[in-house]
């Protein structure tokens, strides 16, 4: 098959990081070429260079043997390169058709007004070709995530592209939606479009991919045909070593109850009763929107309860604010750590110490020497990978950012730590480290609550699992009863009862 795209010896440096180191990549006509690697491996950077969103420092790009020297995304689009980013770039208030034609609007011959009718018609046609029956004149914010994805694809394909890169396209799709997406991908493939497919989900790659390229630390490790490799081999290439076990073992020494929620009602939460013991990892399962994060926010004092009691260390407590909860020894690692957990432009040091500066004060001043010493301990203990604790958090990978937040809560002497999706967006290798850290926490008698949508993870690390469904607790499972089927059953139970 002829080659559509060759990227040769691409290098790119960010402040503090060599993001791409002499990477070469090739894409053939009508193939799905998967790009695999941990976060920070350089996949997204490579795609941004392909799309013209980033300038390369070194290297050359060839499109069908002609060297291409585009500088901005619109030039790359004209050359037939389409990119769908993980976080969609759609404008929610505009209609599907408006978004599809954004930047290439069709104008009337008179006065150059927008020709809405024609754009709607064409958009409808493009969507129909993709096998989607979304009305083109509906605004984006009325569409589901999967439908938005289709709009993104339509936006790319209506321009007659021959190269389409997709960054984690299945990250928030359901199984049937993924099937539908794959159908569309196969269709594009048959039309001769070359597809670059980035995903963390290894099973998918074996289903849809033709070839796979693995990247690690900004370098290309290997390209191989999908039939010549297997999951274990790919993980080894991604991580750079073999992983012994996906989940480290721990033996629970469960102590007294440290936290009781009794009949909590708040917003969508209905009659929440829950008990957490010292030294226990309590898993909180449920579908997205079941109310798991809301339970965490209640315990953390971020939201106020309408009724019900919180009993902490045997005494009834009302946490009026996160500050209140933190002072009592409760910590929350939020689901979206970039948005709700971290101060991107500040150093690791400041991000760690911020929640408990009091022991670091000398009079009214912060004792920087002491601060450096204390933070340095956590820096070493958690093996945060960065040049120093003065490195800005924005230059860290997802796993290291998570460690920074964890260090903050270790520094506040937490007794209860709530992890909301602790390993979302974190690489396989670092995941294992995070699980190990959680195990160490419970060994010290800390009570841990883990909220996770990855059932294997929840089953692998929890001592007990509580399942939520539509704001209620729909069941509780002991370790011996753990299974994905049982959890899913409970997570969808209430729905069935209503029906």
């Amino acid at each position, binding site marked *: 098959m002829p080659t559509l795209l060759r990227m040769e010896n691409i290098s790119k440096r960010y*402040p*503090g*990081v060599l993001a791409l180191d002499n990477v070469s990549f090739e894409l053939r006509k009508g193939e799905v070429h998967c790009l695999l690697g941990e976060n920070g491996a350089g996949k997204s950077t490579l795609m941004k260079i392909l799309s013209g969103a980033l300038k390369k420092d070194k290297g050359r790009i060839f499109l069908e043997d002609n060297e291409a020297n585009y500088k901005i995304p619109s030039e790359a689009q004209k050359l037939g390169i389409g990119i769908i980013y993980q976080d969609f770039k759609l404008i929610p208030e505009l209609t599907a058709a408006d978004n599809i034609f954004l930047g290439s609007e069709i104008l009337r011959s008179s006065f150059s007004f927008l020709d809405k009718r024609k754009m709607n018609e064409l958009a409808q046609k493009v969507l129909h070709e993709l096998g989607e029956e979304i009305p083109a004149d509906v605004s984006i914010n009325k569409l589901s995530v999967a439908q938005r994805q289709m709009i993104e694809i339509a936006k790319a394909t209506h321009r007659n592209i021959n190269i389409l890169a997709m960054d984690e396209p299945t990250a928030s799709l359901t199984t049937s939606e993924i099937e539908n997406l794959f159908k569309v991908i196969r269709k594009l493939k048959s039309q001769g479009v070359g597809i670059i497919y980035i995903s963390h989900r290894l099973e998918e790659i074996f289903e849809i991919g033709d070839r796979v390229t693995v990247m690690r630390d900004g370098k290309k490790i290997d390209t191989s045909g999908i039939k010549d490799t297997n999951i274990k081999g790919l993980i080894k290439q991604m991580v750079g070593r073999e992983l012994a076990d996906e989940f480290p073992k721990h033996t629970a020494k469960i102590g007294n109850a440290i936290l009781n929620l009794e009949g909590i009602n708040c917003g969508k939460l209905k009659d929440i009763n829950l008990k957490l013991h010292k030294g226990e990892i309590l898993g909180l399962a449920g579908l997205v929107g079941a109310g798991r994060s809301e339970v965490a926010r209640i315990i953390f004092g971020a939201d106020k309860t309408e009724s019900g009691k919180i009993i902490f260390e045997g005494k009834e407590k009302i946490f009026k604010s*996160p500050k209140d909860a933190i002072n009592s020894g409760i910590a929350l690692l939020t689901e979206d750590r970039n948005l709700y957990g971290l101060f991107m432009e500040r150093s690791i040091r400041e991000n760690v110490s911020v929640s408990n500066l009091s022991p670091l004060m000398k009079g009214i001043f912060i004792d920087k020497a002491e601060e450096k010493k204390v933070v340095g301990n956590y820096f070493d203990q958690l093996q945060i990978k960065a040049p120093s604790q003065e490195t800005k958090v924005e230059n860290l990978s997802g796993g290291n950012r998570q460690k920074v937040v964890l260090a903050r809560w270790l520094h*506040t002497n937490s007794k209860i730590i709530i992890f909301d999706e602790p390993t979302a967006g974190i690489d396989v290798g670092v995941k294992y480290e995070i699980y190990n850290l959680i195990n160490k926490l419970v060994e010290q008698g800390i009570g841990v609550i883990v909220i996770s949508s990855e059932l294997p993870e929840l089953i692998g690390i929890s001592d007990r699992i509580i399942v939520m469904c539509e704001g209620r607790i729909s069941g509780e499972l002991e370790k011996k009863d753990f299974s994905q089927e049982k959890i899913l059953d409970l997570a969808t139970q209430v729905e069935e009862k209503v029906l």
Partner: protein
Amino acid sequence: MLLKIPGTKYFEKVSEFSLAIVFLFEVLIFSQLSPFFFSAENLLNVTLQASITAIIAAGMTFVILTAGIDLSVGSLVAFAGVLTTSMLKINLPLYIVFPLALFGGILFGVVSGGIAGVFVTKFRITPFIVTLALMTIWRGASFVYTGGRPIWELPDAFAFLGAGRILGIPFPTIIMVVVFVISHIVLTKTKFGRYVYAVGGNLEAARLAGINTNFILTSVYVISGVLSAISGILLASRVNSGQPNAGLMYELDVIAAVVVGGTSLFGGRGTIIGTFIGAMLIAVLKNGLNLLNVGSYIQQIVVGVVILLAVLLDQLRQK
């Protein structure tokens, strides 16, 4: 893999450093062009001229660091000025009236800043709107309170604040230096300062990290209010009268100084030293152009161009 690039660690200091170079360059040019420029008297004069807006700019830096803005500062200058001067005319012994009047002016700054803070935090109205409203309210109040006439015939001792000197240094200059030193220490060495950066960098993350964000946000408007009031009193003393139209458009000069000094309007990034250099850069520019007999209309154009260039420089360096 993370590779270390030398100097990235000192990034903020580098930005101040390059601004300082531009500033020194500017001083050098004017020293060459005008024989009067580099005299001690003229340089002290520049600091005196800069002091009023610079003091406000220190407060504005706190506000902008939290991603807020305070448009009310110019009107606060006017109302604090007329309030203090009117109180000076109360028929009581000077040793009572004097501190009382100063206290009154500064208390007004606290109250106005507190009102702004409450509207921003409790009612969640954007700072731009809240302080825009306060700007017109206090401006109008200044005219209503004085009946549109300046307040004259003040006690002689009052003139010292704006026109007096200690060891040859103008009193407002001394106040300015004290304000900047304290502000710098507060922002870099105290818990409060750390929280200001945190709140500006990521408000929700700050709240979830256990910071009382409403307190921090309210405080920065109070600081801005107090420093504006102090400037208002100094200005009233310098012109030896309470003028209801004092401080007109100051908010723009002040924001210019802060932004030229490298503070981001999106919050979380910036320094007091940067603001100081920014304020001085503009003041020296105006002074130098005066000495060179450049007309005031052209001066406005030049100042505008310099603001654009300074911000452009900052933007380029970040890439």
